[in-house]
């Protein structure tokens, strides 16, 4: 069954997997289009037409061509509001605002240090690149501070933005997965009572399990 929805990029990419998780949560069928980054396909003229910064993912459906994983997620949630998880992006402006606040917190506070750690600890070894120990320590310390904030927040509510699993939690899955399962940093989450509980819940969602399976299949 052909679907016009296409996601370009390797499932192993954290940003690509963010979009895949959202589409699966929303029960939206899609085609996955591989992009061979080792061969520089993401910098090819054809790819730059759909993502001018030469990054993954890129997204297309019958109406639009879009990039930036968090923008794609919001679009999918708005367009397919009645599909799958209806609460993923909230059902009223106040819920949306809270979700946006924590998606931004993910993007501005969690993502920078966790991305460095994911690269240094999970990807650099595979690429035969030397790890930068000082960069690792600095970013572990930064991430630790962020997780302390999360520990307090998750003592007040079940999920980051409120009582329902939302885009805010989903947005954390890609980097946290690598940290916990490849980079041997799971203790950063599990040593904290509330963060540990939250991580256990969000990472065992069916949608995320399917993404992890897609990642395994792609290697």
């Amino acid at each position, binding site marked *: 069954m052909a679907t016009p929805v296409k996601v370009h990029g390797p499932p192993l990419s954290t940003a690509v997997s963010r979009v895949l998780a959202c589409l699966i949560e929303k029960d939206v069928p899609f085609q996955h289009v591989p992009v061979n980054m080792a061969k520089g396909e993401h910098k090819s003229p054809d790819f730059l037409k759909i993502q001018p910064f030469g990054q993954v993912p890129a997204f297309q459906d019958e109406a639009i061509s879009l990039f930036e994983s968090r923008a794609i997620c919001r679009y999918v949630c708005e367009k397919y509001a009645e599909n799958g998880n209806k609460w993923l992006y909230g059902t009223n402006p106040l819920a949306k605002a809270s979700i946006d606040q924590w998606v931004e917190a993910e993007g501005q506070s969690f993502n920078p240090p966790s991305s460095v750690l994911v690269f240094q600890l999970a990807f650099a070894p595979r690429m035969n690149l030397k790890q930068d120990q000082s960069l690792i320590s600095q970013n572990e310390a930064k991430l630790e501070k*962020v997780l302390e904030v999360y520990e307090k927040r998750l003592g007040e509510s079940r999920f980051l933005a409120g009582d329902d699993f939302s885009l805010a939690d989903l947005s954390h899955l890609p980097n946290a997965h690598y940290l916990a399962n490849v980079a041997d940093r799971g203790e950063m989450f599990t040593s904290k009572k509330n963060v540990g509980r939250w991580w256990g819940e969000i990472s065992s969602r069916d949608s995320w399990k399917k993404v992890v399976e897609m990642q395994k299949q792609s290697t």
Partner: protein
Amino acid sequence: MVVKVYGPVTAACPQRVLTCLLEKDVDFEIVHINLDACDHKKPDFLLRQPFGQVPAIEDADFKLFESRAIIRYYAAKYEKRGPNLLGNSLEERAVVDQWLEVEAHNFNELVYNLVLQLVILPRMGKQGDSALALSCQQKLDKVFDVYEQRLSGSAYLAGDSFTLADLSHLPGIRYLVEDAGMGHLVSQRKHVNAWWETISNRPAWKKLMKLAGY
């Protein structure tokens, strides 16, 4: 009831929020936060913004932080008032969101680090890292190349109208041009330069510049 905006009027992220409120003619009160005195790291403020950053807002019972979440909220709440900062259709809104995300992830960190090394640290009597500054500048050059290409096809980043995507860039570009001596990144690019001239001449931005004492 006015919207209380917590943060100094001279900091980039509060400016992002204040510009949006000015565009939408929403009454606000600036509650000054003294960053030099580390007011933003004190227990009272951490209750408002647990990461110890500015801005935070308070609107009657409603509280929010993260400037880009705040502007999305008010642009939607007052959609029918003043300029439409969001776009009309679902697709237009998605493109606005896309370029707002570009600002947040491809642009902001480079500008922040560049300004930190070239302006903020020296002001504090500390040595900036010139190698890091150069690296940021080179990456920013590449980002502006993409903007130049984009803006050769449309007057604003998301299309034919000024939106949150353009607004979000105002504070950072002002820092680059006025404080960091990086104006050439803008002025040497025909379409980026025309875009900057247009968006920085909007009445709302000019009002904010007055409020900030520039």
